[in-house]
């Protein structure tokens, strides 16, 4: 066979070095290839049309090695394409691993269920994530043995999709930023938006015929196609989702069924591939663990709260025990005082009265005996007040009718009022709520105020009324017959002081103290122009009662 000698080649492969412009495939950044012939041939010439034409000419030259060169060249190009493809695959996988790592870090660091769910569903639907259009999360309710719709994310219309995706595009947020934004601004809105679907997404966990329950039971993701015509899927369920193709991704953590994610391309109808399914499947493992952990944390938190509450109650009960011990102590002391003082007083007063009965009116010692009787009676009264005061330290509250309370106090003073020609007008409020008070002590206080009002005066009128004001029922006692100066008003409410006008101050001070113990305000107003108004604000709600 005749071999044609070729002396000129179209490509530059036969030159040791070239200058910029000699090779159409060498441009800026490839300068080092100009002087490196071997690299130039491998990287540029093999793909160059000029080289291919040179190779064809060589093949046509009849040289016996020419066909071998063509075979080697073709195989080289095939392998190069394969390597490129593998490199692209590796790049994709590297990106995926980085993405999963980033998500994993976020998921691992969170124990907030809403945050975990926001990250998970954002990752599935974001373009920078898995790029699905919508995602629904169904969580397993183990008590009710059902899977129930919990949260969803994604657009419900093409218009909304366009707007949302444009916002995301212009925001240039990374995945973590997007999920945080979702958690902060959109979680509740998305839950409400999909409420109608979520509340109907209920699947019995043990329904083996249902493809979703089965996927969870078998712990395998499923790409559901032709959803409207499947035996293992309720047509209503498919209609609810509104798509015929979707992914079902079981969430399993520590061998436990946590829930299911359903993802679809409701808007774009982009084909969901096996590769999509495998990628998202990898992602579901950390999601399931994170949901499980966050749920457990929530439960632990609930238990911690219960413990805190129990601890608080224990402390309260301890304090109450201490108070009861104090009460017992006060009881013992007052009982002791009562017997130590009252019995001798009683004997002194009693015998003085006996002697007085048998003492003639003109007996010069009668005045002395009368003094003993009077002083003993006064001491008995003071002792009675002191004992009542100690009794008032610990009120026992319950709900009572405020009108009944006032009527009881008015009955107690009626005899005295009649004797002094006093009229008490009671304006009872209608349909009053019950008030939370110590009935005995509060009656005592109202009675004391009424007695103080009529003390030393005759032929007057007292107006008493009850009326609701906010969370209180106000008992108002208006005395128009008396005028008090500022000093007298202050003295009136100070224990163990006396005013010229109103006698011993203990009763009124005791009343205020008793009311204070029950957190009941007593307001006394005595304007210079005359009259005194007492307002007792009785609570209609049960609140903490301070004892100290």
């Amino acid at each position, binding site marked *: 066979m005749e071999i044609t000698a070729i002396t000129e080649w179209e490509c530059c492969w036969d030159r040791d070095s070239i200058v910029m412009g000699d090779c159409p495939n060498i441009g800026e950044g490839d300068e080092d290839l100009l002087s490196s012939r071997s690299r130039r041939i491998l990287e540029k010439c093999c793909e160059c049309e000029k080289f291919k034409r040179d190779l064809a000419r060589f093949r046509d030259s009849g040289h016996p090695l020419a066909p071998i060169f063509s075979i080697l060249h073709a195989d080289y190009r095939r392998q190069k394409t394969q390597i490129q493809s593998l490199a692209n695959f590796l790049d994709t996988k590297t990106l995926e691993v980085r993405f999963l790592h980033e998500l994993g870090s976020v998921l691992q660091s969170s124990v907030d269920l809403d945050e975990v769910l926001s990250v998970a569903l954002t990752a599935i639907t974001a373009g920078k994530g898995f790029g699905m259009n919508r995602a629904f999360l169904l969580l397993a309710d183990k008590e009710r043995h059902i899977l129930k719709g919990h949260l969803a994310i994604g657009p419900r219309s093409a218009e909304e999709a366009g707007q949302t995706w444009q916002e995301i595009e212009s925001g240039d947020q990374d995945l973590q930023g997007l999920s945080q934004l979702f958690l902060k601004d959109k979680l509740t809105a998305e839950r409400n938006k999909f409420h109608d679907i979520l509340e109907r997404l209920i699947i019995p966990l043990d329904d083996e015929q249902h493809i979703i329950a089965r996927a969870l039971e078998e712990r395998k993701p499923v790409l559901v196609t032709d959803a409207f015509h499947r035996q293992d899927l309720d047509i209503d369920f498919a209609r609810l989702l509104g798509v015929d193709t979707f992914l079902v991704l079981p969430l399993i953590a520590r061998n436990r069924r946590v829930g299911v994610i359903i993802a679809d391309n409701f808007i774009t109808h982009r084909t969901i591939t096996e590769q999509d399914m495998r990628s998202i499947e990898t992602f579901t493992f950390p999601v399931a663990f994170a949901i499980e952990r966050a749920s457990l944390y929530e439960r632990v938190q609930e238990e911690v709260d219960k413990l805190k509450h129990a601890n608080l109650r224990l402390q309260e009960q301890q304090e109450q025990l201490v108070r009861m011990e104090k009460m017992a102590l006060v009881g013992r002391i007052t009982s002791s005082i009562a017997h130590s003082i009252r019995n001798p007083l*009683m004997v002194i*007063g009693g015998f003085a009265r006996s002697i007085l009965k048998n003492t003639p009116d003109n007996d010069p010692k009668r005045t002395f005996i009368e003094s003993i009787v009077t002083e003993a009676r006064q001491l008995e009264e003071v002792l009675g007040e002191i004992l009542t005061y100690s009794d008032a330290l610990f009120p026992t509250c319950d709900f009572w009718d405020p009108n009944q309370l006032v009527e009881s106090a008015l009955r107690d003073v009626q005899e005295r009022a009649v004797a002094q020609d006093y009229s008490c007008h009671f304006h009872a409020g209608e349909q009053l709520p019950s008030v939370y008070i110590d009935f005995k002590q509060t009656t005592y206080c109202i009675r004391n105020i009424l007695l103080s009002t009529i003390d030393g005066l005759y032929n007057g009128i007292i107006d008493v009324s009850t009326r609701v004001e906010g969370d209180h029922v106000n008992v108002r006692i208006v005395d128009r017959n008396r005028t008090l100066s500022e000093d007298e008003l202050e003295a009136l409410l100070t224990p163990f002081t006396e005013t010229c006008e109103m006698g011993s101050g203990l009763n009124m001070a005791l009343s205020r103290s008793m009311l204070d113990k029950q957190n009941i305000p007593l307001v006394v107003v005595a304007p210079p122009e005359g009259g005194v108004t007492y307002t007792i604000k009785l609570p209609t709600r049960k609140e903490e009662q301070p004892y100290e």
Partner: protein
Amino acid sequence: MSKLLVVDDEANIRLLYSEELTDEGYTVETAANIAEAVEKLGQQSFDLAVLDIKLKNESGIELLQKIVKERHDMPVILCSAFSCYKDDFSAWLADSYVVKSGDLTELKEEIKRVLAKKAQRRASGL
């Protein structure tokens, strides 16, 4: 004439009650403790008992319970130095309650009232 039993650990108080109530026309027997009271109750019949709640190391309430159990037809008036005993449910077994005072008017009125009530009950056959 009604016969009263006065139980108080204080000798002077027993004397005072005895003097004053005798003046009122009652026949008065006294006892200083539960044992003495039980002994007298076993030996004699009384129309009414006046009991002090606090009897040294004993409780008048205990005696009250005995009387209510064994002599349920005999009324009892409790006397005490401290009104908080009113809050003791056991004290509610008594027919009346009086806070001790040198002025025996309240006690005397209560005795009259309780005896009248007893008489009324008897008259109506209860």
